[in-house]
């Protein structure tokens, strides 16, 4: 039987990363749940065996239920009637299979009926579900909202909402509005506390809300009258069972059609405040968005994997000029570049997931006891790394997902332009990844801090300390050369002291850093397993030529040329 988990060796390889020992110990708090919960692991091996076997369950549901349903779900889509959404038949089937398998609320502590899994296996599950159906991956992946409830809501709210996830509750994050998309500070939806009813009431409109008719919704609303910026916004949790929010319409989208994108009208909808007032956007939504961005990273890798599989299969079957088309250099180059990029972005994805796991582990423990100085330092370092790596993953994997889907369709030739092959849907589904949860351009705005503060460089120098096999020394030297060049260009841009110039070159600089980082990560992978040796050998020359192009452009660029680019 096909299984999306076991048919891809990269996943087990990343699951078995040496850093997992620490990550699992932090997450399981030295395995203290053993004896208390009959499904808690008693040690590291036991926990790892659990992740592996649960991913195997998810892998088979993905290949046997979700992927086969994807075609009909794309055609049928959700519908809206009487202010509420009905999912496509296949969507309901997918959701029921995963709910029954008990894999919703994967990260939550056991006391909320969660599985208490770290991010690494959770992100893997997200990748698998996305490979099967990217639109459905949103509905499943919005269990992320539970993380925000767990981290910031009161005990009472946690007890009320978190156990519902495992029973199949879906969630939504209601952030954007007609006039507040990328700029969430402009959110207008109003929250006021009604003394007579003893509850907060929400009034206003939300737009572009994925899975907007979910059972549990996190709503960003203006709670402070007379304010107009982000500091007047708070985060609320709305229970669909309480009523007050209606779906006005759902968008007719290009891709991810199974996932309903809703316009919502709130009329005196009762809601509960999460955490403190005024921290809605500046603290809670930032955290929520980071989780969602990692989710889109996983989604992008999943779609790219699906597109690559389709292209590889088609190219191995399609014959022209007397041979299968994968025998022609123009085609096999595309396929190999796709594979290497997939491996590179996957390594970046799980590296980031490990940083997130480590800081989340420590910060959860810090809620119970004071951390030692070393522990606090480790928390700080990993928080910072997670912060600068998350936009990098979102940027690189969504952009590459698009280019891989583009090439996969290209390999299909005319057949790819016709709706008979899955690649046509994958191409449409891919398109959103570089747009939602912050466009690529906004990821660059977030990531450029990693360039200007030296965060990426410091981590790259850290990677450079690794021991490599003698035959790979030359690759490490090449990466060191790329790093020097990167440092030079950063210094050059910074020296101008012109923010607009920095913004102008930001994407180039961020992508240069990303290429170097992925080069080191693949080099690391190749130390652990020889099968990745060819990947790093292939990737580094690509990185060199890409970085050189960007570097040459920056080197030759004069500040005054900026004026030529301006749109009058």
């Amino acid at each position: 039987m096909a299984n999306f988990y076991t048919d891809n060796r990269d996943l087990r390889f990343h699951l078995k990363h040496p850093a997992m020992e620490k990550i699992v110990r932090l997450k399981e708090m030295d395995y203290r749940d053993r004896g208390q919960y009959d499904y808690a692991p008693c040690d590291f091996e036991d926990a790892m065996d659990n992740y592996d076997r649960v991913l195997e369950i998810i892998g088979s549901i993905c290949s046997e239920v979700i992927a086969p349903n994807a075609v009909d779900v794309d055609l049928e889509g959700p519908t809206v009637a009487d202010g509420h959404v009905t999912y496509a038949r296949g969507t309901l089937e997918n959701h029921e299979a995963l709910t029954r398998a008990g894999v919703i609320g994967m990260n939550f502590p056991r006391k909320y009926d969660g599985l208490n899994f770290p991010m690494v296996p959770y992100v893997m599950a997200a990748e698998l579900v996305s490979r099967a159906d990217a639109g459905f991956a949103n509905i499943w992946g919005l269990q992320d909202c539970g993380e925000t409830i767990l981290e910031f809501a009161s005990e009472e709210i946690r007890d009320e909402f978190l156990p519902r996830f495992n029973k199949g509750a879906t969630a939504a994050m209601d952030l954007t509005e007609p006039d507040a998309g990328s700029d969430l500070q402009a959110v207008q939806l109003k929250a006021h506390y009604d003394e007579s009813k003893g509850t907060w009431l929400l009034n206003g409109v939300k737009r572009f809300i994925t899975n907007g008719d979910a059972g549990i919704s996190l709503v960003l609303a203006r709670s402070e009258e007379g304010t107009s910026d982000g500091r007047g916004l708070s985060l609320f949790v709305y229970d669909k069972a309480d009523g007050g929010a209606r779906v006005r319409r759902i968008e007719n989208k290009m891709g991810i059609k199974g996932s309903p994108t809703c316009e919502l009208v709130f009329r005196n909808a009762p809601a509960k405040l999460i955490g403190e007032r005024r921290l809605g956007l500046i603290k809670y939504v930032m955290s929520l968005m980071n989780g969602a961005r990692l989710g889109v990273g996983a989604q992008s890798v999943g779609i790219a994997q699906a597109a690559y599989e389709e292209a590889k299969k088609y190219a191995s079957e399609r014959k022209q000029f007397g041979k299968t088309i994968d025998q022609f250099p123009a085609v096999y180059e595309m396929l190999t570049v796709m594979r290497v990029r997939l491996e590179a972005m996957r390594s970046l994805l799980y590296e980031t997931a490990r940083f997130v796991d480590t800081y989340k582990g420590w910060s959860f423990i810090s809620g119970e006891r004071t951390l030692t100085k070393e522990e606090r330092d480790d928390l700080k370092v990993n928080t910072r790394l997670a912060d600068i790596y998350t936009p990098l993953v979102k940027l690189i994997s969504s952009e590459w997902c698009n280019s891989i889907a583009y090439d996969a369709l290209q390999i299909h030739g005319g057949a790819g332009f016709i709706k008979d092959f899955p690649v046509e849907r994958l191409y449409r589904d891919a398109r959103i990844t570089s747009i939602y949860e912050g466009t690529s351009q906004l990821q660059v705005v977030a990531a450029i801090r990693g360039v200007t503060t030296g965060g990426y460089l410091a981590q790259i120098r850290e990677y450079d300390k690794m021991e490599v096999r003698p035959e790979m020394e030359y690759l490490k030297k090449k990466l060191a050369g790329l790093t020097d060049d990167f440092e030079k260009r950063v210094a050059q841009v910074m020296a101008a002291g012109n923010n607009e110039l920095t913004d102008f070159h930001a994407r180039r600089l961020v992508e240069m850093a990303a290429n170097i980082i992925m080069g080191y990560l693949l080099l690391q992978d190749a130390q652990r397993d020889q099968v990745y040796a060819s990947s790093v050998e292939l990737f580094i020359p690509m990185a060199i030529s890409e970085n050189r192009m960007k570097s040459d452009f920056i080197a030759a660029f004069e500040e005054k040329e900026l004026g030529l680019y301006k749109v009058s």
Partner: protein
Amino acid sequence: MNGIKIVVLAKQVPDTRNVGPDAMKADGTVNRSVLPAIFNPEDLNALEQALRIKDSYEGVTVTLLTMGPVRAAEIIREGLYRGADDGVLLTDRAFAGSDTLATSYALALAVRRLAPDLVLGGRQAIDGDTAQVGPQVAEKLGWPQVTYAEEMHFEGGRLIIRRRLERGVETVSAPLPLVVTVNGTAPACRYRNARLLMKYKYARTDTELQAESSDYIAAGRPAVRLTEWGVEAISADPEQLGISGSPTKVKEIENVILQAKESKRLTASDRDIESLVRELLENHTIG
């Protein structure tokens, strides 16, 4: 039907759906080492029916009953991962070599001891393809039986069962206690549940525990023990078990090798198609 007790008959079988060239040994017996052991597919359909009844009513228990070597305990674990409450492994050297008659004798005795209200099983196993065991168990218990079931629900204390037959669909009703065999056209079994898997993955029979000689499982986990029954546990007459209790004797096994020269070329003409249809009807391939 709150509180009823269901027994699901399940068999561990070699996966004959993906047979390679070395699937049979020279002596005509199944080469079990190259075929993975799996949960008989239609027994999984039966388990799903049992679990659906359990989902719909209060206090329903589902117990798996399997007969086989020690390694067949895996079938019980598979059932537990999907939501069964417990299971019994019938295992004893005396059972070895049993045909369908001896097997149903042993199973019927075990069912008696478990005293369920309803017994569900797959229509047939993919290794023997006899479809005899379920009906024989019913006969030995003296209970009514319904075969080819596809869907079932309770109405006024009786089980209403939709049967998938060759020429159509029949709906019947039957009182408890009852034996029902389930068709492969019934809904597929649900997937394993993550939490149940983590809970039961170390469930072992006593024999398995001894063989593994692992302190790890015993020390690290609240031990979940699987019930193992031998001949004595079901008070069986050894004469009616194993080879001595099995009237079926395999006289000879022939390897059928299909050769390409047996192929026939047809054109798209009405006459060719008609003659093919007639031929298929005559040799009972269809109809």
